[in-house]
């Protein structure tokens, strides 16, 4: 009887300890040190990227941009670091984002370093925040483009999730929550000066500009009303929205009106003029998650301030004529083409109508953290396009691997047909710390 009792007690103890033994065996612990907050926080990532490009020989931009246009391929290796830091003291915090990169390619060595943001923020109350310093803005609901991003830096639609450099501003943010159809109202006021050494790439100097954004969450729809006024750029007004039409179907859009949009235009006699006219740009997009875990992002962009197909062809023809000129006779047309390229014709997405589509499949074949996808950007006016399949793997803690191939294609005198390269293979590895 006594032996039986001892055995029962022993078994009971084993039963009681079993979960903890399993726990220990599985090493599932939650150490409170892991959640300890530090006033000074530093993080960021190191990146190594290798690209192989097939040069689109005889294209307009390979002749305009490459020092040795006869080259058929180009290889590059690029290392970069992004450093994010913040220091909190009471209701204030100091925020910093630095970025530096160095690149060795077939042509030579380049390096660059920038302060992307550096600002002091004070939050006396959850409904009020003030900041001063260099800060990055990404206004608008569009994934690839943001016609209402009046104080945004230009983002690359091939990598729209990358950090962007900011502008030196003073920002005030007031927000209030409500019960009812209107759930949130948030007003952001941004003062953006343009002086000799401050924000001098934003627009005309010696002006103080004001941008304002009123955000409303009304009837489960995000709505932003945005204005920019000041003399550095034309006055602009815009609206954006985003809403879920169904749990897995999101619709978003943007509309922007620019009062006096200035555009440098090449005329038929190869002279140039600056046109000042009103411009209206729109974007309409969807994000849809299908039952098979494929996420689709599709956007249509009408760039009212862009160049028509005819205007773009005129530019390509002038550049071609410049390449054909006898070097001894000078290269006026070529110089003018290079100048026009910088001032507008060579900017990313200079045309009028574009389509963006990105499809990603989450973890197919039960491969955790593996996301294949395909992205395409089409110039709807000239039917040229880029198409980029890619795979992303994030299975190793703090590592991200991305392999991407881009095919860039189009006929003569089309946007993607006249790019520097006809394709690109890219491997990018990031380590986060």
């Amino acid at each position, binding site marked *: 009887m006594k032996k039986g009792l001892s055995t029962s007690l022993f078994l009971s103890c084993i039963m009681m300890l079993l979960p903890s033994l399993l726990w220990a065996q599985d090493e*599932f612990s939650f150490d409170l040190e892991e959640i300890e907050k530090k006033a000074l926080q530093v993080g960021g990532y190191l990146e190594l990227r290798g690209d192989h490009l097939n040069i689109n020989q005889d294209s307009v931009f390979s002749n305009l941009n490459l020092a040795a246009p006869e080259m058929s391929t180009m290889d590059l290796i690029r290392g970069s670091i992004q450093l994010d830091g913040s220091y909190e003291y009471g209701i204030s915090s100091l925020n910093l984002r630095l970025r530096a990169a160095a690149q060795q390619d077939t042509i030579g060595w380049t390096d660059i370093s920038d302060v992307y943001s550096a600002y002091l923020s004070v939050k006396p109350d959850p409904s009020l925040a003030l900041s001063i310093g260099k800060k990055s803005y*990404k206004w608008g609901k569009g994934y690839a483009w943001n016609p209402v991003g009046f104080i945004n830096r230009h983002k690359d639609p091939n990598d729209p999730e990358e950090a962007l450099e900011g502008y030196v501003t003073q920002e005030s943010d007031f927000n209030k929550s409500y019960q009812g159809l209107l759930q949130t109202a948030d007003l952001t006021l941004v003062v953006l000066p343009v002086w000799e050494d401050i924000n001098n790439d934003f627009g005309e100097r010696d002006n103080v500009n004001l941008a304002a954004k009123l955000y409303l969450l009304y009837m489960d729809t995000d709505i932003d009303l945005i204005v920019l006024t000041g003399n550095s750029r034309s006055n602009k007004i815009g609206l954006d929205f985003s809403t879920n039409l169904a749990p897995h179907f999101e619709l978003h859009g943007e509309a922007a009106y620019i009062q006096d949009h200035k555009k440098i235009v090449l005329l038929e006699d190869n002279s140039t003029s600056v046109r000042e006219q009103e411009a209206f740009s729109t974007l309409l997009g969807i994000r849809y998650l299908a039952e098979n875990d494929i996420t689709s992002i599709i956007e249509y962009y009408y760039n009212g301030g862009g160049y028509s197909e005819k205007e773009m062809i005129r530019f390509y023809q002038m550049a071609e004529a410049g390449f054909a000129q006898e070097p001894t006779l000078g290269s006026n047309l070529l110089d003018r083409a290079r100048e026009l390229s910088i001032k507008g014709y060579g900017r990313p997405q200079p045309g009028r109508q574009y389509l963006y589509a990105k499809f990603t499949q989450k973890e197919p074949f039960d491969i955790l953290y593996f996301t294949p996808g395909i992205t395409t950007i089409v110039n709807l006016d000239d039917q040229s396009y880029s198409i980029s399949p890619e795979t992303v793997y994030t299975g190793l803690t703090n590592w991200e691997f991305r392999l991407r191939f881009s095919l860039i294609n189009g006929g003569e005198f089309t946007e993607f047909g006249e790019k520097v390269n006809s394709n690109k293979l890219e491997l990018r590895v990031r380590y986060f710390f």
Partner: protein
Amino acid sequence: MLHIIHKITGSFLFLLFLTGTALALDGNELLRQVDARMQPQSYEMYRKLINIEPDGKKKEFVLYTVKTGQDKMVALFISPASEEGRATLRLGDNMWLYIPNVGKPIRITSLQSVIGGIFNNSDILRLDYHVEYDAESITEQETTYQLELKAKSSSVAYDHLKMEVDKKTLLPTTIECYAVSGMLIKSLHYSKTQDFGDGLIRPSVLETDSPLHKGYRSLMLFAKLQKKEFADEVFTLNFLPKVNELR
């Protein structure tokens, strides 16, 4: 005569007992009690999410979460470094994800997963069960109640749940999550009941597996779950980059 009176009284008492039992077994009331035992209405907590692959490989995420009212919730990733600063906000049926590099919140849906693995956004930003589900039936067994729950709207991630509740503690032990088609999407298992202080005694581990991902498991460990009040303005898009300042 006395025998008849006794019979009538007995039948009456039996009926009264049945009614009393039915009242005691009101599924929606039981669901409210389960929620009340699981967490206060407004709180902060830390969670560790662990994804375990069939070969034993693990990946861990730590989140700081705050909630107020019935349907306002924010979860901030504080580790690993690759996810640090990401924040998800839920206001009723609306969900957004903020990624520091991207710099603006984007709308997400409840069945997406911002971390990969079996836990999806609705698991990470789960509201009280009685807010999203109605109890359709309840059955009593020796040591448990079995609740059949139906989603109040089509925007809820799982169409219906089968919840097993421990009779003594009124805490959930197992929850099976089903799609509209009746397909079992995942099973959730609560374990390791722990005293979080202030009278809150509840499971500290939630484990999930799914017939759709055989061999894969995900765990959620809970820590420092405590009652705390927050201003409604904390649960707004512009506050997402500042959530870490609440800690």
